[in-house]
């Protein structure tokens, strides 16, 4: 499936760049509006074209959640086989965004450490909450995108996450 994924180029996103505020985007974030954790990428890219900045933010958020999935899988390998497909989806989304994000911004994206709860059931619930937060975040970024194609891509990613949440594997 990855082979058929659309891949965004930075050139395409820069071509859509116009006025718009990464600063406003990052300043308005508040807990519960879809943003799971503050990521350094948001502050590291104030001069990027708006949609490139959105791609950078989206990539950071997806990467952070994917790492949370993988950390949880390592903690409970026998009970989280169903999360393999979730991690695979995140990797596909990262691949679709990677070319749109400047190398310098990518290197700044170090997700905060993810603490896995001690009990598998709670770990699964917490991870599902993170996925739901990511879905809301992708929807919010889609709303802000200037390029229609990029907005569709982000919204589709959010819908893909929603499908995974709706079919969340039991532990």
């Amino acid at each position, binding site marked *: 499936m990855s082979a058929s994924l659309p891949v965004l180029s930075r050139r395409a996103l820069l071509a859509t760049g116009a006025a718009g505020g990464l600063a406003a985007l990052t300043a308005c974030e508040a807990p519960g509006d879809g943003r799971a954790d503050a990521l350094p990428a948001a502050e590291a890219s104030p001069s990027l074209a708006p949609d490139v900045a959105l791609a950078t933010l989206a990539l950071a958020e997806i990467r952070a959640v994917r790492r949370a999935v993988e950390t949880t899988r390592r903690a409970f390998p026998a009970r989280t086989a169903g999360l393999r497909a979730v991690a695979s*989806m995140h990797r596909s989304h990262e691949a679709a965004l990677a070319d749109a994000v400047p190398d310098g911004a990518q290197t700044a994206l170090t997700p905060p450490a993810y603490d896995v709860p001690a009990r598998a059931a709670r770990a699964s619930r917490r991870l599902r909450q993170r996925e739901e937060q990511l879905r809301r975040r992708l*929807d919010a970024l889609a709303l802000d995108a200037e390029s229609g194609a990029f*907005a569709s891509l982000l919204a589709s*990613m959010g819908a893909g996450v929603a*499908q995974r949440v709706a079919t969340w594997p039991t532990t």
Partner: protein
Amino acid sequence: MADDLTGGADDTAGPPTPLEALQRALAAEHAAVWVLAFLGARVPATDSSALADRLADAFEEHRASRDELTALVARAGAEPVASATDYELPDPASSPEQLRGAARTVEERVARTWAETVGATSGDDRRRAIAGLRASAVRALGFGAAPSDLPGLS
């Protein structure tokens, strides 16, 4: 000639205007309402699965979306597109699996239309399109669709 399950968006033209995109979404919802009603009426009485309930729920949600879009387009000063007089129906559509497959096709096509609408709109209209895309993607799961990395696009 019967329209297809989505109401037949014209893919040969350029990018749609926001209003055109909303009209296409409305046409898709008209088609979904019509086809899901047809499918719901064909669920065998002996079927003990949740299919009848799922079809009924999907019908209600698409009808609500259709009505919302109709009002939205009218508020924009345009004439909302009407339901087609005829739709190309799935054939055969008698076994529960065939009915599920047809409903899945409806949801996946509506999701594609909403994904296009996301790209053609902004603000509240785009917010509505994002929600429509997500709703169809999740409903498709109930009819046996496998999760997709990019619903509406792949």
